[in-house]
């Protein structure tokens, strides 16, 4: 650790540490005395969050029982850049043409991807953003890649159906998207997915287990091992990143 590794938030001057937070407290703020108490409560919270000094710049009662605050303050915490851990991306992001070439030379056949959302999650927006030709953020989805065959099973697919279909299609990879996170459903569904594929592999399904990839806006990309899957993608993942990961994992360089 050197001094160059230490940073603070930047407002308008190096080292001023200024940040902005907003939150609601379940306290009344309509009368003058209530408001004074509420603002005191907000400052107490800001202090405990490490903002010192802090200033309540906006107070707004929401109904009779709640008050909303915007607070500016100086973060007393330091950020040590040398101690930041970044899950390293172990692959380069390739263009569709490069991805297609890798698949052709290394596999000599199309790479098969089976995608679905599982559990009660009816949101296909994530899986569709990655798989549909239409794609996401200006990038075409995996259906656009000539050397990738996509089987999109859509929403609310029972895990056993997904396992059966993956083997039937000789899937190289299974992509599962989870948007709904109430009660951590995305995490328990991912674990169930991994368990179902392990159980199927042990019961003698004919070929090797496909690569298991899960994604969704609330996933921690570093959580793959804990969930028992091969790869986890978080918010903002693009189709090209997924395609690049697939060829990285399934077509090791030099394997051709």
């Amino acid at each position: 650790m050197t001094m160059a590794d230490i940073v603070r938030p930047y407002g308008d001057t190096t080292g001023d540490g200024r940040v902005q937070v907003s939150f609601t407290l379940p306290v009344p703020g309509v009368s003058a005395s209530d408001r004074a108490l509420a603002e005191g409560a907000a400052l107490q919270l800001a202090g405990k969050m490490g903002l010192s000094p802090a200033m309540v710049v906006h107070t707004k009662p929401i109904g009779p029982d709640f008050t909303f605050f915007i607070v500016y303050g100086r973060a007393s915490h330091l950020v040590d850049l040398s101690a930041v851990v970044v899950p390293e991306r172990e692959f380069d992001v390739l263009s569709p043409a490069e991805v297609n070439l890798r698949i052709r030379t290394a596999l000599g056949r199309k790479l098969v991807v089976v995608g679905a959302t599982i559990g009660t999650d009816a949101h296909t927006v994530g899986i569709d953003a990655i798989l549909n030709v239409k794609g996401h953020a200006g990038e075409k989805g995996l259906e656009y890649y000539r050397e990738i065959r996509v089987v999109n099973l859509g929403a609310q697919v029972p895990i056993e159906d997904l396992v059966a279909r993956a083997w039937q299609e000789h899937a190289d990879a299974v992509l599962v998207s989870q948007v709904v996170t109430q009660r951590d459903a995305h995490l328990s569904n991912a674990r169930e997915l991994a368990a179902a594929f392990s159980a199927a592999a042990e019961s003698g399904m004919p070929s090797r287990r496909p690569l298991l990839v899960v994604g969704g806006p609330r996933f921690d990309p570093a959580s793959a091992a804990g969930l028992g899957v091969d790869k986890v993608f978080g918010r903002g993942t693009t189709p090209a990143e997924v395609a690049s990961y697939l060829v990285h994992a399934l077509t090791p360089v030099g394997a051709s």
Partner: protein
Amino acid sequence: MSGKLNLDPAKVARARELARRAGEPVTKLAQTHTTVSIERAVLRLAGLDGADAEGMPWVNRLTDAVRDAVGLEYGVALPAWDAMLAGGYPDLRTLAGQAADGRVKFRIPVAGEAVEARELAVRSVQKGVDTIDAQRALRSRLIAATADPPPPWIYLIVATGDIYEDIPQAQAAAREGADVIAVIRSTGQSLLDYVPEGATREGYAGTYATRENFRLMRAALDETSRELGRYVRLTNYASGLCMPEIATLAGLERLDMMLNDCMYGIIFRDINPVRTFIDQRFSRQVHARAGIVINTGEDNYLTTADAVDAAHTVVVSQLLNEYFGLEAGLATWQLGLGHAFEINPAVPDSFLLELAHAQLVRELFPGAPLKYMPPTKHMTGNVFAGYLLDAFFNLCGLMTDQSILLVGMMTEGIHTPFLSDRDLALENVRYVRSAAGRLGLSFQPDSFVAGRAHQVLDEALALLDRIGAEGLLRAIADGTFGVTRRPPDGGRGLDGVIERADGYFNPVADLLGELRGTDPMAEVLGGDAE
């Protein structure tokens, strides 16, 4: 037809005519088929409520027992009320319990016995229809006793999963200015082939639609309506595999608006197309009777398709929803056709394009309470930019005189709204309304905006021509809507579709105006009929 865009009345009339032609074969399908959920809705109107120890509703048990014994080709009513007469059961609940245990012998009655069964069936469902009528009258009285808020109606969503958390949130939202409260359903309910029972406290990203939840929320909002001196409307979702039953429960419990689209379930929930088209017709007949305003789901197309490229598919779907709605007996004031502000803000002139689309829809459907949906696809997590985009959405909605404004949340796509998100969103609407609410009066589209509107209408006409040539079911299979392909024999729920036999009997059909015999499109095709 006049207006700011100078649309060609001949083109508009032709668009409606093409929509009618595309829809008619599907209407015939609905007239010659029934579904398990329509038959269960008949039993619900006759007062059969509750569920067995496993939570399976008695309407499912009885309908399944009848189907296993004699099929549903003649409807559930004939064999069910014939069994009531033959077995002397005190009520349908007892019959359903006995039937579930395999202790009832069902048959298709003939001659005098069929007449008796039919008469008893009609008398039994009449009570349910009377309740719907009474609720409609009560709504009118409550509106008269309070006040009907001026348009646009401010529409807010609650979605905690727990009806007892939803209630205070809904009341708080109403106090903050919401005119319409929508209780989002638990994710996955659309694919349940039964309606859960009772008050529910656990759901995923929403709260189950149950009769008791409807009743509890309506009662709470009645209380708030009196407190505020304005009638606060309640919305839920008549969609999914139980669309006809949920429509019925909504009528019985005085919900005021219902999400109800002729194609949404097909495209976005992979429900079988045939099942959906049959179910939507019955559910709309119920909504017509109940005085419920439907909200259609065209906004959803723009979340999977590009909002500029696919603008005309929204118009086509609206014309189809209008045809199917009017055919089922809905009045124009009940057609809350949907659309959305979903153009990528990075596109040059994106706001002008939004204005063109919104004004086009306003002028195509002058009498319809249009429902305008806020941006979702391009809400990136930058809440500050999102708040600005929502303000532009509010401005566009006010300038083009949209009727129902779903309030956008700056935290869209991050989490279900915080209390403060909702409050900030309403502050946004209030500011735009008070600062620029009358801007629509002086707004004159320039040639760019008008030209874009004309282009979208032309593209809609071309698409309607194609659909007319190949058939609506085929067009859906080809991925015409929402860039999603749905074949007629695919999706869920096809096994619940039954072709009607010659002697098919549904005691509700006449009550719901099945035999109206007037031309449903006369009102809108007649030009100045408004």
